[in-house]
């Protein structure tokens, strides 16, 4: 039963894109990841419109006091098991906003993060590698 569950999760990870106060650069790269050029549907990755359908949250941007409650709400709305993949250096370790008064720390202070994909912005190839690594770690 557990193996079946894992197989299903590995073969069809549906992603939901959470853009929490990023500079939009990582978001554009995520959109590029989902274009026919990279064809992530080969791995069963589909972009879904609602966090209720999602298996993986792609979080971008430096998290701040305003966006933190929203991100936590989206995380709670997602049915478990769900992966969190931090995309971009801001999401991984706050990047140049480390000493900002408004930054409340990288994502792993608040929710469990399964993969870190650094880069400003990371390439789509790097994102695919990160998602594959996160899935093979399960």
């Amino acid at each position: 039963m557990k193996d079946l569950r894992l197989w299903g999760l590995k073969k069809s990870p549906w992603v939901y894109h959470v853009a929490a106060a990023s500079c939009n650069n990582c978001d554009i790269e995520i959109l590029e990841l989902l274009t026919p050029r990279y064809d992530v549907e080969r791995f069963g990755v589909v972009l879904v419109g609602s966090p209720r359908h999602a298996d993986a949250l792609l979080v971008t941007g430096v998290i701040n006091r305003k966006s933190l409650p929203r991100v936590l709400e989206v995380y709670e709305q997602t049915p478990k098991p769900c992966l969190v993949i931090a995309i971009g250096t801001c999401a991984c370790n706050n990047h140049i906003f480390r000493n900002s008064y408004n930054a409340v720390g990288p994502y792993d202070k608040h929710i469990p993060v399964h993969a870190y994909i650094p880069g400003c912005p990371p390439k789509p190839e790097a994102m695919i590698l990160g998602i594959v690594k996160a899935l093979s770690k399960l």
Partner: protein
Amino acid sequence: MSTWFSGWRLVVGFLVTVIGVPIVGLVLTWVDRFVSARVQWRKGPPFYQPFADILKLLLKQTIVPRGAARTTFLFAPVVGIAGMTLVAMLIIYSNFNTVVNQQSSFIGDIIVLLYCFALVPISFIIGASASGNPVAAVGASREMTLYLGYELPFVLAILIPVVKVAQQWGVASALRIGGLVAYQQQFGPLLYSISGVIAAVIVLFTIQAKLGYVPFDIPEAEQEIMSGVIVEYSGAPLALFRIARAMAFVLLPLFLITLLWGGLRDWWALLKFLLIVVLIVLMKNTNPRLTIHQALRFFWFILAPIGIIGLVLAFIGL
């Protein structure tokens, strides 16, 4: 025919409708995604992709929102699946059982079929309204408007073959799917006439709307209202909704072939079926989404008058 034989047929028919139709539907969902991928010049998912999706959803956590009517929310997808199973029973039995037993389908089963097809949009409306989500409410109102839109030309299109058969064999056999199939076996498909072509075109557009595919995917527009009617669904109920949609994807082309293109009793039906499916997928891939008033105007003020013209032609005998 011995009772044992008919009992055996009953069991096989039951297994085909309850297990076979969802499996074929999921495979067709893969065909849809594969053809879409090839249209966009990419590789596409592996053939087991829909089964992995369904398996994953069935074994995942199901969240019922706090403001939702719990029982109705969880029961809604079952209504859709039940409706589709009834449709499968009616279509498959009236195609394959009429030769054994002329009375196996009943008078007026085509009207029952209409209502059973309506159970899928109704299940979506019930589920969306029970979920207590404002976005789902927008989706539900759009689904209702769209349903009112396409049902009028759909009924007109179904009336065309009924009128044609009724002129020869009387209303009693024209209102039976078995009667329509038997007529077409004797006199050739009803599609090969002007009114038949009109009916087929109308039914094709309605299939697109009933499946919620792209020119008419207004109730669950992912970009504007976040999957609309199914926004609050997760886990197993979402899987059931997807299975109901997949079953509709099998049954609507089968219904078109039964109604107009000679029934399912020869091997050509398989080829016709694949042709219709690929046509639906290509329509899905080459069109942008309409707004709800454009869709309503299209169904009521373009397709419905065409359907009335077709009906008049059928009365004349063309």
